[in-house]
């Protein structure tokens, strides 16, 4: 297994755990981004996007998007559900797109971890770009920083 394959397998596993903890039906780009931050990313750290900052941005996006249709995430006050350890979570559409874009970013060379981050950051719509924008992070500047 190449270095990148090993990295991808590890962060996907960690993203799957994250998705399971959140009770998500699929593993999505936001879970992958949290896993990348947890694994350590110089570009994310340099931008001030540690895992806590990303989580806060994602929570804010969730509340904001629900609020646009008059729904309050805070009104959900049932005790948290026990996570489903048995549920087989598959990568969802946003992860599949991020992986396609990872290989585009690598441009025929062996992908590196930074290409995976670029694959996620390339999305112009969806939860991750909305969360970054709402939290005041400049996605395009972040892409430039990763290209560094």
């Amino acid at each position, binding site marked *: 297994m190449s270095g990148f394959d090993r990295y991808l397998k590890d962060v996907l596993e960690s993203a799957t755990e994250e998705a399971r903890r959140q009770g998500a039906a699929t593993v999505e780009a936001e879970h992958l981004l949290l896993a990348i931050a947890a694994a350590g990313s110089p570009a994310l750290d340099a931008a001030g996007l540690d895992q806590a900052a990303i989580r806060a941005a994602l929570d804010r996006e969730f509340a904001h*998007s629900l609020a*646009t*249709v008059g*729904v309050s995430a805070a009104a959900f006050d*049932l*005790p948290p559900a026990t996570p489903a350890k048995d*549920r087989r979570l598959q990568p969802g559409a946003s992860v599949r797109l991020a992986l396609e874009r990872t290989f585009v970013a690598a441009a025929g060379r062996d992908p590196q971890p930074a290409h995976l981050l670029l694959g996620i950051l390339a999305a112009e719509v969806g939860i991750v770009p909305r969360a970054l924008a709402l939290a005041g992070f400049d996605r395009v500047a972040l892409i430039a920083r990763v290209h560094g």
Partner: protein
Amino acid sequence: MSDDPADALAAVAALRRLADQLEDAAVEQAMRAGWGWPKVAEALGVTRQAVHKKHLKRLEAAGVELRRR
């Protein structure tokens, strides 16, 4: 409602996520309160098989005492 289509689309995605989280929490609450699978399924508007398949192992692992009926 905002004029930006991205807002309405993001709201759909967020509502789906909220519904998934709410379903897990609500089914667990009902089963802990002693409801049976058929009643939970009927209240959710899904088949008994669907709710059983989705939640049985999770609730067993959580130590919830499950009624068969």
